[in-house]
């Protein structure tokens, strides 16, 4: 009957603060379960949310990648056809902007009625300005494209010519407000007669 031998020892009065400590320890372990479950649920929710967000982001990025790839392929095709087509006429215009020397190269496709324009060495625009390219036709000056040059790097674009019936006789480039203008009003970068 040694199970009871512990009772042979005189009792000791615990310090009053011990009770609070002991009960807090015992009950804290019990209450840890809901906290653990809540924490686990939060982690799972965050994981699911994160996975959903990642899935959406990846989908969007893959769509953007496909779109850009298609665009690059189309552009590559356009550039290739421009450059290699015997009907393409090459025009190179030296320009000076912001104290630097650059060039504007025009591949004029008279069969498909479109131009491929490449700008090299143009100085970046002020924040409220942009380069604007113009077609000079027998009926007046027509806006071709507005090119905001924010970075010091080449720019390439394909431009359809004005409607049939208008004869393109030249091109011009001016510096205009960033939203573009209906007719040339700013400093001329170049003016070209074909």
């Amino acid at each position, binding site marked *: *009957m*040694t*199970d*009871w*031998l*512990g*009772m*042979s*020892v*005189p*009792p*000791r*009065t*615990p*310090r009053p603060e*011990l*009770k609070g*400590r*002991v*009960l807090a*320890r*015992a*009950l804290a*372990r*019990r209450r840890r379960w809901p906290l653990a479950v809540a924490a686990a649920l939060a982690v799972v929710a965050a994981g699911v949310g994160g996975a959903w967000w990642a899935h959406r982001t990846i989908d969007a990025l893959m769509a953007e990648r496909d779109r850009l790839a298609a665009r690059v392929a189309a552009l590559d095709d356009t550039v290739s056809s421009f450059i290699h087509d015997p009907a393409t006429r090459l025009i190179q215009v030296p320009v000076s902007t912001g104290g630097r020397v650059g060039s504007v190269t025009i591949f004029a496709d008279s069969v498909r009625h479109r131009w491929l324009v490449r700008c090299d060495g143009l100085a970046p625009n002020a924040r409220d300005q942009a380069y604007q390219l113009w077609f000079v036709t027998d009926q007046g000056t027509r806006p071709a494209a507005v090119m905001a040059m924010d970075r010091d790097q080449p720019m390439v674009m394909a431009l359809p010519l004005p409607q049939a019936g208008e004869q393109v006789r030249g091109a011009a480039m001016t510096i205009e407000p960033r939203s573009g203008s209906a007719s040339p009003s700013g400093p001329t970068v170049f003016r070209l007669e074909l």
Partner: protein
Amino acid sequence: MRRLKGRDERALQELYDALAPWVLGLAFRILHDEDEAEEVVGDVFVKVWRHVHKHDPRRGPLVPWILSITRNRALDELRRRRRWWRKADRWEQAHGTDEEAGDRAPNEAAVPGWPLHREVHAALAALPDDLRRVVTLAYFEGLSHSQIARRLQQPLGTVKTRLRAAHRKLTDQLGHLKDWVE
């Protein structure tokens, strides 16, 4: 017991009030260190609260079950401490005060279970010295039979015989005891 198993926090508080002095007394008797004994008290009530569903009333009352948890936990602490040479000396010094109640032994009238203590204490005291000695070494110091034999410089068979005899006498005298906590 039912309330404890039903996760009644108030039942745990009542159990603490009823048993903490005894748990602390036993832990202090084994460890002779107030801080360590209080640590054991915390461990014991945490374990009781978490594992009370494992206690089978058919295999024994609740109080001895809790006392055995206390003893085992305190002996674990004692064995760990014995490996610490710094504390070994202090333990040896305290070892000579087996029956010391300490300066916070409460008034008997204020402690539930005091009559039972008197009965168990009397049963232990009534044992012949040689039997009481082996019981004390085994129960409060956690020594194995062979360790007791070395300590007392007695043959192992003698120690086992004395332990069996002591167990028989204690069973005869204490077999009727029941929990005073419901």
